[in-house]
């Protein structure tokens, strides 16, 4: 136990990196999810197909594979492009960026399904009513679709977020100095890997438990005024 206390700063800084990574990928995944849902619901056949391919691809490929492809392969592609066009010099894709992009990309597909379902759950008449009183599409989105979409999307969003937090652990495999990486390094150097890994598990448990409680509270808030079946 003393060793944990001795290395507390390392664990804390690792936790900070993990949280930043999770929030960054969450932001990206929400953006991608909204775009994906819009594409899936649009009447344009092309965008429909692209979004469909995106969600199928993600369902088929494990996140670590995409992460490694992006970290090792993306680096080469970006630099080959830079050399060919002469637009940029050597670019380094660091582990953090590769992590945010790959996790965000993967969970963007899950968010697409979440948001699509949530938008479909809003009665069509409400949107038509909004248009009929002269709202612009943006106003319809901001005042009618968005607030109700959140309510319908929250349960599945909570689930996605909990899975996302756990997915951040994989970034340690490509060498980002996150919680898992720091803890396994410290654990090896003091020869107490079990103690440190257990500490990591507890920290992850705290993160997931806190977000679980927080998001449940939000679910109750957004469901105020809705009859419970």
């Amino acid at each position, binding site marked *: 136990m003393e060793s944990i206390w001795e290395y507390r700063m390392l664990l804390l800084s690792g936790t900070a990196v993990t949280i930043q990574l999770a929030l960054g990928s969450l932001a990206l995944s929400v953006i991608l999810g909204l775009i994906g849902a819009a594409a899936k619901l649009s009447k344009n056949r092309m965008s429909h197909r692209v979004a469909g391919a995106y969600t199928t*691809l993600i*369902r*088929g*490929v*494990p*996140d*670590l*594979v*995409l992460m*490694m*492809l992006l970290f*090792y*392969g993306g*680096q*080469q*592609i970006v630099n080959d492009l830079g050399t060919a066009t002469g637009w940029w010099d050597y670019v380094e894709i660091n582990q953090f960026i590769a992590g945010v992009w790959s996790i965000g990309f993967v969970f963007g597909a899950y968010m697409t399904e979440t948001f699509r379902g949530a938008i479909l759950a809003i009665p069509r008449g409400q949107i038509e009513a909004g248009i009929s009183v002269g709202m612009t599409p943006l106003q319809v989105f901001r005042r009618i679709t968005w607030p109700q979409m959140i309510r319908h999307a929250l349960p599945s969003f909570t689930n996605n977020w*909990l899975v996302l937090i*756990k*997915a*951040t*652990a*994989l970034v*340690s*495999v490509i060498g980002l100095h996150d919680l*898992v990486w720091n803890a*396994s390094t410290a*654990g090896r150097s003091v*020869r*107490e*890997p*079990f*103690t440190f*890994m*257990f500490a*990591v*598990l507890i920290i*992850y*448990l705290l993160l*997931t*438990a806190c977000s679980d409680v927080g998001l449940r509270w939000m679910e109750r808030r957004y469901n105020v005024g809705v009859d419970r079946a």
Partner: protein
Amino acid sequence: MDGASLQRGRRPGITVTNTERTLLEYLVDISENHSPLDFMLIADHIDKFFYGALLTLEVTLISLVVGGLMAIPLALARAYRQPWLNRPIWCFTYFFRGTPLLVQTYLVYYGLAQFDVVRESFLWDPVLSSPWWCALITFSLNTAAYTTEFLRGAIENTAKGEIEAAKACGMSTLRMMRRIILPSAFRRALPAYSNEVIFMLHSSVVLSTITLQDILGVGRWLNGRYYLAYEGFITAMLFYMALVFVISRVFRLWESHWLKHLRPRETVEA
């Protein structure tokens, strides 16, 4: 193997002469020098990928079976709120569902060696020092935790009338469980279970982080050996996609067979 043959584009056994070029050599030349992906190199090592796929499937399937069998009694105990079991089982599932599988696997594989008791026990030599067994144990517990929770949901949602009917027929609790509750709960849990199977397959990439040569492990090995950036990962990606495709097809067949009674009727009689 000499140093030069380790480099990209030089493989032992294939030399191109000026006088004659067979189709194979022509393909190798295109693959090495013109194509963005060195597909001939992948083709040379495709057998390793198939072995990797075998390992991935082996660990995934065994842990799904073991975890699934563990989950049935656990889910029953949770659904019927067994006073001494409900709480501990809840703690078990909460712990395993709230933490990353990667860290759980590290804890078992790297962590347990910290204790002399474990290293000196009879389990150490054949089991706990082997990455295969460590992965299998962790994966089984992990999938057991997830399966317990959705199976509990399915058991709790059994229609009240079915249970009352079973009681009215004079079935004992055990027989009712075996004939009525579990079969209908399994059916309702099937869609959730297909997700769990695909998730387990995705999670099995953790195998490659504890020195095992699963699909991703082979991809990483190939890239490391020939200094490649994406050939190995793209091949691994295609393998995983094929596996997921087959699994979801199989589940769709099962769902159309076992959940037939839940589909809306297609023909309406006049």
